[in-house]
């Protein structure tokens, strides 16, 4: 058998640096990131001009949710099924999957998140341009699911990134996902461009 030469670049340093990033993130992300939806209950008081601008913008944003590609595990196939011929997310204008997170609005976190993956997910979330939303799809994404006791599993995406809508199920059926998306659309409809979210 031919002997394959060593890798061209010094990969061990890269590995060590990447491992350090994971360890740091693991140490720093024990608490759950709180849901920043308190503003939803607040009564919105704006003048007519602003509310009509808001209505227009909210309509545009909720009607064209482009999804970032971040599908680690099993739930991805229910998402694809939801995109497929039978459930057909393209009706909502969501068939455009942006491979580049810069152009996406919605991150559907389909699947178990491991600590090794966590820095990448965080990075993708940070690369997405505002405004952006996250749907945690499936039990693993919400709380770690049946893998919660695993040594490499993050118990829920909300340890890493803020989550807007949780869709339970293992995996959720495509109908459930579509319902979750509609909940998100309702949430976007309540949002106001000029109302600063209180952190």
């Amino acid at each position: 058998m031919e002997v394959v030469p060593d890798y061209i670049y010094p990969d061990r340093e890269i590995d060590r640096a990447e491992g350090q990033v994971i360890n740091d993130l693991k140490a720093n992300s024990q608490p759950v990131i709180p849901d920043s939806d308190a503003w939803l209950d607040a009564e919105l008081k704006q003048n007519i001009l602003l509310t009509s601008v808001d209505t227009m913008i909210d309509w545009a944003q909720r009607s064209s949710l482009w999804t970032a590609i971040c599908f680690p595990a099993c739930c991805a196939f229910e998402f694809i099924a939801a995109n497929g011929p039978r459930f057909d997310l393209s009706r909502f204008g969501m068939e455009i999957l942006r491979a580049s997170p810069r152009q996406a609005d919605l991150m559907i976190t389909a699947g178990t998140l491991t600590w090794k993956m966590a820095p990448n997910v965080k990075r993708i979330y940070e690369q997405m341009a505002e405004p952006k939303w996250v749907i945690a799809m499936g039990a693993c994404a919400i709380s770690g699911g049946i893998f919660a006791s695993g040594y490499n599993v993050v118990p829920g995406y909300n340890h890493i990134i803020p989550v807007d809508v949780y869709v339970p199920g293992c995996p959720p059926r495509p109908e459930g996902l579509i319902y979750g998306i509609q909940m998100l659309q309702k949430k976007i409809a309540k949002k106001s461009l000029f109302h600063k979210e209180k952190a």
Partner: protein
Amino acid sequence: MMMPDFGTGARIALAPLPPDWPGGFWWHWLFFTVLVLAFVLSMVMGVIYIERRVLARMQSRLGPNRTGPFGLLQAVADAVKVLIKENIVPAAADKVVHWLAPVVAFAPVVMVFAVVPFANGALLADLNIGILYVVAVSSIASVGIFMAGWGSSNKYALLGGMRDVASIVSYEIPLVLAILGVVLVAGSLSLNDIVQAQQNIPFILVQPLGFLLFFTAACAEINRSPFDLLEADSELTAGFHTEYSGMKFAMFYLVEYAEALAVSAVVATLFLGGWQGPVLPPWLWFLGKVFFVFLVMVWVRATMPRVRIDQLMAFAWKCLFPLALLNLLLTAAEVALWPGAMPLIVIPINFAIAGLLIIIWSKFFKLGWGRVEV
């Protein structure tokens, strides 16, 4: 409107105003520039909607139908959303180039529409070198695309930009050679004259091989599938516009479809008889032909896998280029043989020769394997 004078070529670059158009020279310019811009932008939204609906139907789904009646407002919603999205410039990017790239890419595509006739004489500038202008101006867009690929300081974007430059340099040659066949038959470089020369027979019948060559090369130039290598989403995530968000991304998105529209318009003008047609008003004929060509592009996109970069190059140089030369030679011989009007007999002759050449080439020319020893 003056009648075409083949070959004399004594006209100035800016044609005189048609008598029935309003205002003075500059008012005329301003008015119609705004009109063309508005037309291009609204048509782009239209073709995006059409593509998404048709593509979805071809993939046995429905396509956007919730936003507005029949989903007609989907493109509007997309546009509004993209425009107010955050604009990110990567820290490592070349800021000036990054900002300038979408503009450089977008402007020339709109400029192409200045010389496309919507009806007899209804064009912004009846240049006597119209088709040359189209070829020259439309290539500038790829400078913008390369700027985007280079300025983003992203490896995927750089690969996309490199692929774009490689394809534009190669495909320009068969493209121009295919156009030359049409120009020889029509005897003019002005698009309006070319349309008028198709009074009786559209050039697709006289130039079947030229049409195929032009359509293929143009698809490659504007990077439609199966030549959409520079934003090949299964390879390079989003290619040259990986790092673009918000409004600048919207401009690239616009460029993609405006280019497709421009090519459809040029194909309709050069080969399908432009605004010529019975019964219906000319502009409707023109739009119908544009949409028809665009639908063919969508159809190709929905079925064909993508070629590889070396196959793309090989296809241009080993297949399209010699065929375009032969086509030009054949056309020149025919024009020399029958100066003035061509008899109808050339149509079956040209079809036969086109079929023969394509069969010969498909036997001898195979897209290669392309492994490099490392």
